[in-house]
């Protein structure tokens, strides 16, 4: 201490200050570095994507190489599969999250489920694709939109479980006690009181899950495969935006590559809009 007090001119003090200035400059530089990637990626994406964006993208099918066309069938395919995945995954996730937060908060089973769920949350999505290939595609003998939806649903579940549990844990116990004290059965207490108090947060979870799966490619590659044409049959291969981008971007044809950029822009805009909405809802629910 004595050295420090002895004055700003001492060499030790100067060294420490220099070190501090250098590392703080590094911190600024690192942040600039991180933000510049975001700007670079979005910048290129907007530049390349907007030039190809037109009404035709939303009204025409994917073209054969060398001719013009749109992305209607992959867009619809993605929407339908995402919808089905949410339809399958959300109830399962909400119920499981309810068990973790309401019934078995301190159970041994819950701690195991929580741990496994956290691992599923960041498990490689391509492995989930392989899993669904094994249990659905290989058994049924053909690729199908259903298999794609189920693969996406497997990704939805852990996200919803996690947010549901977190949001229900935030609901004050006094609310539950008040409900119990007037004789409300536990199931009604959960569905009528706890769910209502946690609603915004739970919706946030579902939105985050949608954002997560709408860009997923790997689990669809060998479940839903791809389809160049319009199909209403979920039992047949269904095209999806990410898989079409993958196929078109790696192709040698210029107009396919342009369409891939446009598709990439559409997905990114959708995902960013979803995650910003989710964040907004999330901060709203914390305030109230």
């Amino acid at each position, binding site marked *: 201490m004595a050295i420090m007090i002895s004055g700003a001119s001492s060499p030790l003090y100067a060294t420490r200050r220099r070190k501090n200035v250098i590392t703080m400059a590094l911190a600024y530089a690192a942040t600039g570095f991180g933000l510049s990637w975001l700007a670079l990626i979005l910048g290129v994406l907007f530049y390349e994507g907007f030039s190809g964006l037109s009404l035709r993208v939303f009204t025409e099918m994917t073209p054969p190489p060398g001719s013009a066309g749109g992305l209607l069938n992959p867009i619809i395919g993605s929407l339908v599969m995402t919808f089905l995945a949410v339809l399958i995954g959300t109830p399962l996730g909400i119920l499981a999250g309810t068990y973790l937060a*309401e019934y078995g908060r301190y159970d041994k089973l819950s701690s195991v489920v929580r741990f496994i769920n956290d691992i599923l949350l960041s498990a490689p999505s391509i492995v989930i694709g392989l899993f669904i290939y094994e249990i659905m595609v290989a058994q049924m003998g053909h690729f199908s939109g259903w298999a794609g939806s189920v693969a996406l649903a497997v990704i939805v579940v852990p996200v919803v479980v996690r947010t549901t549990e977190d949001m229900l844990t935030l609901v004050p116990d006094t609310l539950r006690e008040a409900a119990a004290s007037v004789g409300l059965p536990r199931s009604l207490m959960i569905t009528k009181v706890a769910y209502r108090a946690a609603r915004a947060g739970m919706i946030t979870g579902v939105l985050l899950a949608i954002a997560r799966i709408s860009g997923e490619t790997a689990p669809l590659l060998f479940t839903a495969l791809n389809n160049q044409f319009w199909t209403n049959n979920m039992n047949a291969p269904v095209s999806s935006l990410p898989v079409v981008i993958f196929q078109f971007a790696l192709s040698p044809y210029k107009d396919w590559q342009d369409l891939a950029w446009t598709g990439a822009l559409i997905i990114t805009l959708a995902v960013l809009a979803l995650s910003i909405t989710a964040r907004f809802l999330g901060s709203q629910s914390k305030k109230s």
Partner: protein
Amino acid sequence: MKSSGERPVVDVAFQGGGAISAAEKVDRAKVLQRLRLGDTAFRHLTRAAALAVLIILSGIIISLIYGSLPALQKFGIGFLFEESWNPVTEQFGAIAPIYGTIITSLIAMLIAVPIGLFIALFLTELCPMWLRRPIGIAIELLAGIPSIIYGIWGLFVFAPFLQQYVQPFLIKVFGNVPVLSTLFEGPPYGIGVLTAGLILAIMVLPFITSISRDVFDAVPPMLKESAYGLGCTTWEVARYVVLPFTRVGVIGGVMLALGRALGETMAVTFVIGNAHRISGSILAPGTTISATIANEFTEAVGDIYTSSLIALGLILFVITFIVLAFARIMLMRLNARLGT
């Protein structure tokens, strides 16, 4: 939220608290019976859903093991160490993709960990309050961008840039340095192990940043303030107070990011070059487990080929499972300490 949740409950109390006639008592018993049944049913339903999470995980493991049995039976443990990958002669070995997976993730972590920690330091110590949220959100948006976008961007923008400017420079600078020259050997392809590693670094950066920021924020202000009070510089506070206190959490966050990097598929598939060989140079094309599966699975003919790819998936799942489990245990240890 709170008041609207409470009001109907109070109403129920008034209705239930009134005088009950004898005739109503029978109805009441019926209603109670029904409620009791519904209660049990709901309880079991949620429990079943929780068990479903376990079933999904065991389903993944069992189906992967089942699918990879033919390959594992044919090649045995040698599958792990064999380099050749030849669909024609049906000779398959996993060491090249395993090597590629590990080396790309290693490059990613070497770059992303220091940068991520510095950004977290900036966000918790230096950044003005009103800017913290916007910058934090912007960094997290990086995590929200789908991996296929990184892939297409990497292929069309980043790889050509590296090929034209960065890689020739690296070759020129390190070409004559004894050890490093092998690392940067060969022509600048643009795509390759280094490019994949760099893209992965950008992708995992937000994970490291957001977890480190959260754990840095959890350091009791008292600790930091007393260090500042002693005259510590910001760097000294970060290095000797914040980092030691949050070490377990930071390691957890880093492992979580590593788990992501190991399993990342699409971004890597675009820029790795898909060459089944182990090269000393990080400029050379390579492959990773996930890129191999994504590229070859739908085209694989024959049981052994398909099964070998599933065996690769099994290896990937085991590796990431271990890494992620370790990450969770670390984060749980930190939470336990903060909770008390």
